[in-house]
């Protein structure tokens, strides 16, 4: 603010409501949670514990086994999304953006429908679909002669997590599809025409011209997937409950946080350990976002037009 000007109060008035609500409900609780993680409660007395909670979480066998299990499951959950959801999304977007494609609006609308449904609906719908009692999945496999492949996927330790990850992929494939579709539409026509003049069409046009140009958007969907996955909770909770069964095979950081914070069965809830887990998640997400901002985005910028 230049000294000769009067104080421009209207700027403050315009900013105040948003900044106040955002600070009070989001930023302060976020830091308060980080702070809570540094304390512990022993027989009703809260005392400063430094990094003890984290030592317990990472190293004490009673806690660390659950934590590393949740982290490993969460990582696999993310890997499945990156390997299945994003390539399918990019592929669908590439098809949708092909010129003179009829009914593109219909496909776009239809494929996005699962994304708008709540986790509760998605979780229950797939539980029913995969249920051996109802028999939709075994019946469909029977039609193509593969009935022997059927297993109660959600109930088996070795399949449950991958199955849930694929259900989540089914739900969210619309997001990378839309973002990449939008990016493909913004490629200037001259670039495509120049490529066609040089005889680059079809698949090679996609790989050589379009893909490099949409890399920034692929970076964005990767980081969105990362943040979304390491913050996931609802689908697992709806499909498998807070215990993330069978035998914690589908436990991810979100469900682990919920159980720790609120307690389950005979174990009491512990806000300080819960805050420690939230802090660990915060750290993981922060590292991911920093890698994206400093390593990936700066390097991709030169492709942008």
């Amino acid at each position, binding site marked *: 603010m230049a000294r000769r000007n009067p104080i421009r109060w209207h700027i403050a008035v315009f900013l105040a409501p*948003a900044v106040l609500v*955002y600070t009070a*409900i989001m930023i302060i609780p976020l830091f*308060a949670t980080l702070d809570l993680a540094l304390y512990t409660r022993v027989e009703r007395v809260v005392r400063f514990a430094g990094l003890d909670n984290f030592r317990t979480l990472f190293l004490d066998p009673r806690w660390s086994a659950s934590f590393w299990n949740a982290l490993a499951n969460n990582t696999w959950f993310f890997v499945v999304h990156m390997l299945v959801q994003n390539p399918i999304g990019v592929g669908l977007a590439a098809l949708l953006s092909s010129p003179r494609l009829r009914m593109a609006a219909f496909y*776009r609308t239809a494929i996005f429908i699962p994304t708008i449904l709540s986790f509760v609906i998605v979780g229950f719908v797939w539980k029913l679909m995969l249920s051996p009692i109802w028999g*939709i999945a075994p019946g469909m496999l029977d039609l193509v002669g593969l009935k022997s492949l059927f297993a109660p996927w959600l109930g088996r330790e070795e399949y449950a997590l991958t199955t849930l990850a694929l259900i989540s992929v089914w739900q969210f494939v619309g997001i990378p599809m839309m973002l990449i579709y939008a990016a493909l539409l913004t490629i200037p026509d001259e670039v495509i025409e120049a490529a066609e003049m040089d005889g680059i069409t079809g698949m090679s046009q996609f790989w050589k011209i379009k893909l490099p140009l949409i890399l920034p958007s692929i970076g964005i969907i990767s980081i969105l997937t990362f943040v979304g996955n390491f913050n996931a909770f609802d689908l697992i909770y709806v499909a498998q409950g807070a215990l993330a069964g069978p035998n914690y095979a589908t436990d991810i950081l979100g469900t682990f946080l919920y159980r720790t914070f609120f307690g389950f069965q005979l174990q009491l809830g512990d806000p300080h350990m819960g805050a420690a887990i939230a802090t660990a998640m915060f750290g993981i997400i922060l590292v991911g976002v920093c890698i994206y901002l400093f390593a990936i985005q700066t390097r991709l910028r030169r492709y942008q037009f």
Partner: protein
Amino acid sequence: MATRTPIYRSIAAHAVLIGYTLIALFPVFVVVSNSFKSRRAIFAEPLALPDATSFDLIGYATVLKQGDFFHYFQNSMVVTVSSLFFVLLFGAMAAFALSEYRFRGNTLMGLYLALGIMIPIRLGTVAILQLMVATGLVNTLLALILVYTAQGLPLAVFILAEFMKQVSDDLKNAGRIDGLSEYRIFFALVLPLVRPAMATVAVFTMIPIWNDLWFPLILAPAEATKTITLGSQVFIGQFVTNWNAVLAALSLAILPVLVLYLIFSRQLIRGITAGAVK
């Protein structure tokens, strides 16, 4: 394959897209169509459409008699509409301040507000609950409205600021010469011009709020304040063995979101192509 004949390629493209559309819609179709069938028909021929012999509304009857669906629906509406109102109003005001005026700390304030796009508000849950307990807001809809307003603001400010930069300066300066106050310029000139962007932000903000399970479960699990998402989760859980009721409850839960989506899908797609990718 068939690189030179576009007709084959277009058939192949349609085949893939139709295939994926079927995958996307099939589960929804199965649930909705079976919700209109009798229990026997659900198990005997799950893939058949309901016909004269298998048609049965027993599931809907059970749900509407036992569940408090209408009440949950009302709670969800109140929470979603109020949060949406505050996100749009506060978000547009902050976006206007950031995009219109040059002041010290402008960039810093923009970055501060953008932080929330990447860091999920859920990580602060432990402290948010303590805050709500301390202020006596647990099990009130106001707690949810506050949380969702804070959650929606960062993206709203970010997108709306992009759009407000495109509003012509001449128009605003003409308004200033005519003696309009800054508030009048914002409410009477700028706000009507960014209405399409507001609709986009509304759709983006609305879907996660309507579908959220985490905060209703933690901040407002009481019977009086249950949202439809939490309500159907609890409700469906009670009826795991009553297949008619489960399928009917699911169909009822799908319906409102689907209708809203079909009304707003144009806005949503226009918004993604215009603002969110930059």
